[in-house]
């Protein structure tokens, strides 16, 4: 059942994710290498395997975003960093669920947010639901153009062909209008804007 993934070094994973290359393969490698271990942390700390799955997905999103934003520079190993992300995101989730036992106070102390980008990642996670809504509000074409250009790193020429526009200038204008619309939507949502800014600069 399991196809053996080729082994990747930390540097290769960071390279791939930051350049948005072989992302699927790199993510799968991270799942195979770390899911079980990080999941066990959640399960051993008042969670179940469903929680562990959700938290691991959040960890992968946060990690990929941090790498892409240049916020993970490999000061620690990926394994150590993911462990810390997983721990912090889970403790934050427990806190959100409103466990007011004394243990939670201990949790808070145990949570180590000193590592680069972790608190920004937690904030970004909070922002995620709001972000989904905002991007969906943009509408299909805008979403597609912006994703192709800024996420998939496709060139104007490639987008021109795949979306059937007359010329590059049309795509360029459309892209700018979409970005401007997104900018406006984000300006209406101060906390979302703030959280995204933190991820960018924090």
């Amino acid at each position, binding site marked *: 059942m399991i196809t053996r993934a080729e082994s990747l070094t930390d540097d290769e994973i960071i390279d791939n994710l930051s350049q948005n290359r072989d992302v699927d393969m790199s993510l799968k490698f991270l799942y195979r290498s770390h899911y079980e271990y990080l999941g066990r942390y959640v399960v*051993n700390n008042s969670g179940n395997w469903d929680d562990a799955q959700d938290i691991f997905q959040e960890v992968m999103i946060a990690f990929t975003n941090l790498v892409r934003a240049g916020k993970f520079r490999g000061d620690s190993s990926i394994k150590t960093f993911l462990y810390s992300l997983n721990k912090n995101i889970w403790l934050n989730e427990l806190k959100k669920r409103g466990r007011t036992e004394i243990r939670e106070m201990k949790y808070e102390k145990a949570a180590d947010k000193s590592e680069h980008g972790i608190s920004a990642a937690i904030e970004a996670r909070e922002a995620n639901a709001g972000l989904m809504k905002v991007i969906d509000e943009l509408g299909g074409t805008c979403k597609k153009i912006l994703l192709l250009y800024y996420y998939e790193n496709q060139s104007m020429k490639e987008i021109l062909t795949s979306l059937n526009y007359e010329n590059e200038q049309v795509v360029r204008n459309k892209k700018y209008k979409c*970005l401007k619309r997104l900018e406006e939507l984000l300006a209406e949502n101060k906390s979302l*804007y703030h959280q995204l800014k933190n991820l960018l600069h924090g």
Partner: protein
Amino acid sequence: MAEFLHDNEEILMRYLDGEMDGAEKEMFESQLQTDSALKQRLESLQVAIASVQQYGTAEKVKAVHAEMMQELSSVHKESKVVLMRRFVKYSLAIAASVIIILVGVNIFTSQPSSEKLYNEAFVDYGVSGVRGGENRDDIAKLYQLHNYKAVTEKSTSQNLVSKDSLLIGLSFLQQNKLTDAINWFKAISIQGSMKDDAEFYLALAYLKNKNYDEALKLMEQIHSNAGHVYHNQFSEAYINKVQKLNSK
């Protein structure tokens, strides 16, 4: 004015999309230093771009996640079955010891033995997602097959990662070679990715070896550290039972 704004937007986009050459970029960046409105506009466009990237990442991860959960949950189910079997086994063992205690209650006063407390807290290390180099596969596979003797024979091989060392320690523990187990766990518990696991099993090895003082010290440490992976494994009640054993 409208024309000027348009020009400025064009310039901002050229900057953001990396279309400026060195000289133009330099000029733009020095303008940024003095023009705070321009700087603010740049930032809000950067945030918008970051939000697109974040959205793209979330969608990508979700797709991979769905696929990987299917692959990994099959592994997970296997380990659950093992744990379940263990649970049944221990339940039977505990049930059996209850009967023995009940039968012997007139002769002996009931007292938990170190062995019993050991069984109560012991959770086997789930070997799954076997991967990596030859050596590692071998050790994890042998452990999974409960071939503990073969695992400990690997203790002299080169290039052991901490997971291998942990499994070697565990295999000594399973064979009741407690001093060896203690030495292996001690070495791994100093630092590294298996630190929490090593500390947990080290505490149990001490308990089984009747080194109660050392066992208690570690158990209390794990119990009071909420961030420890095995934090819930040693409850206060459990530690009290070990203390009673120690005072006998």
